[in-house]
């Protein structure tokens, strides 16, 4: 957006599109919006009918079920995700067309956007209603995968790609903690189902560890300190993505999980205290950093970190009041924050600017947007007549119940919120106009207005919203919760706290110098010492290690082979060390056909030595085939005719192929006694100069390990192999006489299928390497 000519272009296109009603052409986007609307209506109808549950067996051996239930918590988040989804998708129909036109990308790129958005909405509904920890994990990761593609939608831009990868890594890697917690709980209590776990789980070490792990996963998803750094980066996404994922959906998924498993978290005082600390740290870090941000969406991103900090703090406090307050908070915040994100997108689309320092005085040009954004900002700041007032009232009540410290924290949080969101709105809409904005398409304003109306309606008639929060809070608290916010015109503590917050917050807005400087200082310190550096450093180290290992492994043919043989030998040696070996190795007697086998094996040994010593290619090939044919004869003698047959034909083919490929090798043959350094490629030279003892060592380790392994196997009494007898017994039943064929085609048919599929893949690999994938 910084390039002036691009900005001009965008504005011209904006004007053109606005004049011709372009947005209606995004059928795909409208279809997504209609889907979301249908889902919203469905959820609402079901919820009005008293909820519902659905369950089907999934993996019966593990007791896994596909169980979904539209309980209070599920209904709250499902309605939030689908309801805001409808509006954001409608907004996106217009935004995406302009965005693609601005970037000169074809309209079919929509197909890279809307399916992910729709899948994301579906995953959110699934996550909200899932009643099983493994299901929860699956939907959790599904949202992360969708977000990867959505954040990286502008894939030509490096920042977008990095941000997408960062969001994916931070949320997916930490999501593994959720899976570990699920397994831990399953091992301890024998079920993955959340309601049963809540019934069974006591307060023990296992529960505490599992609770802490689940909290880590949830906190990373909700962009809480110290995992918060991915969210501001993720603002590289198109605005509809931010308005949806980064206000009411993806980051809400984290606190949703907290709310869902809260009864388990509440078994441990330490986990709750940890939540309080993280929540408060996020409130302060996010809030203070939001005070000095210049880029519109960055202000909102840090605000989101801070706002979900409130919710985490409430969950850390726990109990009836806090659970209800947290549920109501998520609802009120989601509505306000998506409206503000969409405001930022509309302003940027119309002016071409995305920085507060270059914007201002838009009040006269876009009064509807200004009023709607003002209402949303007021709701976020907790001013009366909006939903936000009640969210703060409930927050204050919960904070006051929890003690004096949290009372002060609550006021600090509210002051910061009013400070940064007031600054945001003031710099955007008041003051001297600095830009000449183009007309904003109606579809970029209408969703903001609708959300503003919802905020005001919730501020006037809070009862239905409070009822939903009550139901959700009851799930979180595992006991009935009463949420009854209302206006009281008296000097009760919550009102006093609110007034204090407004006064101090108002001061922050009117005297911005000092707080902005403090905020900038914190931002600089965070850049120098913050967790994002740890993320970058660990990625760099991972790549360095991976490159080092890879470089060593593929240096030449010897190292590639050693990379397989040496670890295999070392592992076998380890197994040798830890398993009892007394009596496991027997020396049998030589009798009968053994007198034929022994000379054959001697031949194999001699041929092997010749292969290793020889420098002449033809000698190597021929001695290798001697090894192969002698082994085939051994197979035939130890009564494995099927293997012997296959071995003979395969050996013959290999020998032929080897001989044929000799003709394709470069002519310069390494003659003994002289290293041909002028014609040999560098890799070969490197192999020649490698110390011999290294090759001997690698070969020795691998050879000794396989020798002991085979010796041990042959020494074992044959009676131990019960399955072979079963195969032999049942072969006539399968209409066969040759056990091996029956095993291959019938008993272990699935194995064969996998193996021949590998053959096909190998051919594709060879074709890719040699002829760019052409099979013929």
């Amino acid at each position: 957006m910084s390039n002036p000519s691009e900005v001009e272009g965008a504005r011209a296109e904006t004007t053109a599109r606005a004049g011709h009603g372009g947005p209606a052409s995004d059928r795909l986007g409208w279809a997504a919006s209609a889907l979301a609307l249908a889902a919203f209506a469905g959820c609402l109808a079901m919820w009005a009918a008293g909820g519902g549950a659905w369950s089907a067996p999934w993996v019966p051996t593990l007791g896994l079920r596909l169980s979904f239930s539209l309980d209070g918590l599920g209904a709250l988040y499902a309605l939030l995700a689908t309801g805001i989804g409808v509006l954001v998708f409608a907004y996106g129909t217009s935004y995406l067309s302009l965005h693609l036109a601005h970037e000169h990308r074809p309209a079919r790129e929509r197909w890279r956007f809307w399916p992910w958005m729709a899948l994301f909405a579906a995953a959110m509904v699934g996550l909200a209603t899932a009643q099983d920890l493994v299901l929860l994990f699956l939907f959790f990761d599904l949202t992360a995968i969708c977000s990867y593609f959505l954040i990286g939608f502008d894939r030509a831009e490096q920042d977008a790609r990095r941000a997408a990868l960062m969001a994916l890594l931070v949320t997916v890697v930490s999501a593994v903690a959720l899976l570990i917690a699920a397994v831990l709980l399953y091992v301890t209590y024998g079920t993955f189902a959340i309601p049963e776990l809540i019934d069974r789980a006591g307060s023990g070490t296992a529960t505490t560890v599992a609770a802490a792990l689940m909290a880590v996963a949830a906190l990373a998803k909700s962009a809480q300190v110290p995992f918060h750094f991915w969210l501001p980066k993720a603002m590289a996404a198109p605005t509809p993505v931010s308005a949806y994922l980064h206000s009411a959906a993806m980051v809400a998924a984290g606190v949703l999980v907290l709310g869902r498993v809260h009864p388990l978290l509440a078994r441990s005082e330490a986990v709750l205290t940890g939540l309080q600390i993280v929540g408060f740290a996020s409130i302060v870090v996010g809030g203070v950093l939001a005070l000095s941000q210049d880029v519109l969406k960055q202000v909102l991103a840090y605000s989101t970190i801070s706002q979900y900090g409130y919710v985490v703090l409430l969950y850390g406090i726990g109990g009836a009041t806090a659970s209800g307050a947290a549920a109501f908070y998520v609802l009120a915040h989601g509505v306000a924050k998506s409206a503000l994100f969409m405001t930022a997108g509309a302003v940027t689309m119309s002016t071409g600017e995305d920085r507060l320092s270059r914007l201002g005085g838009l009040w006269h040009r876009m009064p509807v947007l200004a009023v709607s954004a003002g209402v949303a900002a007021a709701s976020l700041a907790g001013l009366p007549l909006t939903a936000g007032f009640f969210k703060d009232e409930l927050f204050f009540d919960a904070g006051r119940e929890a003690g004096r410290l949290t009372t002060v924290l609550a006021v600090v949080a509210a002051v910061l919120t009013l400070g940064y969101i007031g600054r945001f709105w003031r710099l955007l809409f008041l003051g001297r106009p600095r830009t000449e904005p183009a007309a904003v398409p109606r579809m970029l304003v209408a969703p903001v207005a609708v959300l503003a109306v919802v905020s005001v309606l919730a501020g006037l008639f809070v009862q239905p919203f409070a009822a939903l929060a009550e139901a959700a809070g009851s799930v979180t608290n595992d006991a009935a919760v009463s949420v009854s916010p209302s206006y009281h015109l008296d000097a009760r503590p919550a009102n006093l706290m609110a007034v204090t917050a407004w006064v101090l917050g108002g001061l922050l807005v009117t005297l911005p110098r000092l707080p902005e400087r403090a905020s900038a200082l914190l931002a600089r310190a965070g850049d120098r010492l913050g967790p994002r550096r740890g993320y970058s450093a660990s990625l760099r180290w991972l790549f360095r290690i991976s490159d080092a290992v890879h470089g060593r492994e593929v240096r030449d043919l010897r190292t590639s082979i050693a990379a397989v043989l040496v670890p295999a030998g070392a592992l076998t040696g380890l197994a040798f060390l830890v398993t009892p070996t007394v009596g496991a190795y027997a020396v049998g007697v030589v009798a009968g056909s053994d007198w034929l086998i022994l000379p054959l094996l001697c031949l194999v040994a001699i041929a092997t030595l010749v292969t290793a010593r020889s420098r002449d290619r033809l000698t190597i090939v021929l001695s290798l085939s001697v090894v192969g044919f002698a082994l085939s004869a051994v197979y035939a003698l130890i009564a494995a005719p099927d293997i012997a047959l296959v071995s003979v034909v395969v050996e013959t083919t290999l020998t032929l192929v080897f001989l044929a490929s000799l003709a394709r090798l470069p002519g310069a043959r390494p003659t003994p006694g002289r290293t041909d350094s002028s014609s040999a490629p560098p890799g070969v030279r490197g192999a020649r100069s490698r110390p011999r003892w290294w090759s001997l060592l690698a070969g020795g380790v691998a050879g000794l390990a396989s020798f002991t392994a085979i010796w041990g196997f042959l020494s074992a009494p044959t009676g131990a192999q019960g399955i072979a007898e079963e195969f032999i017994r049942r072969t006539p039943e399968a209409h066969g006489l040759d056990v091996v064929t029956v095993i291959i085609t019938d008993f272990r048919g699935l194995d064969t299928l996998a193996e021949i599929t590998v053959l096909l893949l190998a051919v594709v690999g060879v074709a890719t390497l040699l002829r760019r994938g052409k099979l013929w």
Partner: protein
Amino acid sequence: MVTHRDVLLGGVARLLWGPSLVVAVSLIVKGYTDVGDGFAAGVVVALGISLSYLALGPEGAERVLPFLRHSPLFLVGGLVLALTAGFFPLALGEPLFSHHPAPGEDVVHIGSLELFTPLLFDLGVFLLVVGVLSVLLHQLATVDPDAGSQADEPPADQPPDDGASGRADAGRAS
């Protein structure tokens, strides 16, 4: 440059082609009663093919055995046949690889050839092995005319590699 040795080898290769097919067929026919199965049969046929390649050169072998051009078809067809033979019981509500006729039922015999679904699976394996080996022989034996130039310089029309640059991005992420 044709030497008399090449002529001899070529003659032997042509002579052996018929017997190798016969051996392969017999391996499949008596697969369930005696040593051998589709895999071994496939390798035997491939052996005949590779002998032709060695004796007649790639062009000669592909002229004498024109069906080789359809090897990719064998490859895929074999896998599809094997997949079908293994998975069709799902449609009947039975576990994978439930062969028909089921144990205890009568099987139609033609000599030692038994007509039942494992035979289809075996044929699939056979076709796939023949396809795999002939495609590999073709790949190794014939030099792609423009392969050399491609190896030397990367084509200019190739789009910037997302994976590689993403990796580099992440490494440099600040």
